[in-house]
């Protein structure tokens, strides 16, 4: 796609009919969790969309997010979106290596100054920047440098969005999220470990379509995907209402597909769209396959008292401490009673004297 072409022209040139385009728009609207009534609007906008430049930086990460993305519904619709953007820098996916790669990044930054989108996956170590460097540049420096002239940032994955697993207690690298470093640019957090691939492409599609930041929730996540919790949209919710719970992973309740709340499901406190979009082309999602939600799209999900601890169970430490408090209370009770009795005796003695 040439940079002076808009998407409509590009698709036409690719031999995509108007029908094909409308179908693409339907899928894209669905992808962005927009109501079907918005398809016409999407079609209008998409036809005129310009091709944005995207720079993708990977810091302290496991490449799971990229894996997730590249495993998304291969070629057609999402790939069209990728065709429609100019992915100018991406460690894992780019052909260039070494200085050439860095030169491509610098060139893209210069050419599209103030207009490119910076996608980040992975957290940034600030404890000691040397924990993670690229081409001799610390993650911190590279992020600051690249973010300076970006139009907006997309933090892909929980590590980039909230610090994620590197940030988990005791956080040996001093890992922080993108929003801990960059404070003067719009940042869209696409959390999840990994995020649902269509959510990543959905956010890019939004950019592509409207050239704006989608509506965000309190944690900077696109409200369209993170607006509702897993629990509210879970197909096992009726079991919760009826109080039917699997007690273990191999009991009758588990086999009957009952609610996994007691097995530590974090669905009620996790905001993501797994229950509706599902994974692997809509095949399933963790709860459907019998395991509770671990809350991977939430900050500090690794430190919420264990994946198998029910939400309502306290994270309050040992029973011994409670016994200690009881003993201390009893001791104070005895003490205060003894003191009161001593006063009583003294008063009595004083009276008799």
């Amino acid at each position, binding site marked *: 796609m040439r940079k002076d072409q808009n998407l409509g022209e590009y698709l036409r040139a690719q031999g995509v009919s108007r029908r094909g385009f409308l179908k693409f728009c339907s899928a894209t609207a669905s992808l962005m969790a927009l109501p079907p009534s918005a398809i016409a609007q999407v079609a209008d906008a998409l036809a005129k969309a310009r091709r944005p430049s995207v720079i993708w930086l990977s810091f302290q990460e496991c490449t799971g997010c990229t894996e997730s993305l590249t495993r998304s519904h291969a070629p057609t619709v999402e790939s069209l979106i990728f065709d429609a953007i100019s992915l100018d820098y991406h460690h894992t996916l780019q052909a260039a290596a070494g200085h050439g790669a860095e030169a491509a990044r610098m060139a893209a930054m210069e050419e599209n100054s103030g207009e490119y989108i910076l996608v980040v996956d992975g957290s940034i170590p600030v404890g000691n920047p040397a924990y993670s460097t690229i081409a001799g540049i610390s993650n911190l420096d590279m992020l600051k440098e690249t973010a300076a002239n970006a139009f907006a940032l997309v933090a892909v994955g929980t590590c980039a969005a909230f610090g994620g697993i590197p940030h988990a207690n005791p956080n040996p690298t001093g890992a922080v999220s993108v929003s801990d470093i960059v404070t003067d640019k719009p940042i869209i957090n696409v959390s999840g470990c990994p995020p649902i691939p269509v959510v990543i492409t959905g956010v890019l599609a939004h950019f592509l379509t409207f050239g704006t930041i989608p509506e965000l929730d309190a944690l900077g996540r696109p409200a369209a995907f993170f607006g509702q*919790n897993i*629990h*509210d949209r879970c197909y096992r919710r009726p079991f*919760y*209402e*009826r*109080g039917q*719970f699997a007690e273990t992973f191999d009991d009758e309740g588990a086999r009957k597909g009952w609610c996994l*709340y*007691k097995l530590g499901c974090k669905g*009620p*406190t996790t*905001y993501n769209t797994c229950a509706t979009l599902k994974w692997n082309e809509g095949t399933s999602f963790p709860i459907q396959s019998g395991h509770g939600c671990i809350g991977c799209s939430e*900050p*500090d999900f690794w430190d*919420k*008292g264990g994946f198998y*601890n*029910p*939400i*309502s*169970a*306290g*994270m*309050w*430490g040992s*029973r011994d*401490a*409670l016994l200690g*408090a*009881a*003993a*201390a*209370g*009893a001791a*104070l*009770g*005895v003490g*205060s*009673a*003894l003191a*009161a*009795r001593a006063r009583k005796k003294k008063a009595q003695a004083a009276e008799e004297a």
Partner: protein
Amino acid sequence: MTLLDFASGPGMQWALWIFVFGVLWRLVGALFLLSRKDLTKPRQYNSVAAGLGAIISRSAPAHAFEKRILFQHVTGYVWHFALFISVLFFAPHILFFESVLGFGWPHLPNTIILITAIIATAVLITLLIRRATHPVQRFISNADDYISIFVVLIPLITGILAFAHVGGRYETLLAIHLLSVEVMLIWFPFGKLMHAIMTMPARYQAGTAFGRRGVKA
């Protein structure tokens, strides 16, 4: 640390500590004031049976009083049963108790819990209104009486809201619910909620005191 992390972690921890500490403090402190031994010759009676008997018999007023206190009697029962069912048989609550006590018990379907919780709330509000308007109750009431009602009412309301996901995000509602329970736990030993603990010794001592005189408490 999020609000929920605080509420379910250190908040709950401290609240439980203060609760247990305060309850023992007040209970032991009162009992340990000791009483002079009653040296009079009792009628034939079994002090344990009399004490335990009173714990049961005081759950219902004597026939002669029934008419005059019917409203309080009925609302009292409905309130306590609805509260206990809501608190003790809601699955997430049981999981909490299990994490504290080390054992759990069967739960009831959520729809039943929702109904009992709404009933409990409605009755408590009714009792609050009565306290504020009934000549005797209004006259004898002090801050403790109202605080004690509010610290119980708020966990009920926030619990229902959290359950129904109304009025905010679930984790916020849950955190507020937990915090309100913590406030209740902390207030418990200092205010008249303590009656829940004192009922047993108070009724027991009434039972033995009346029992030795050959009177049914």
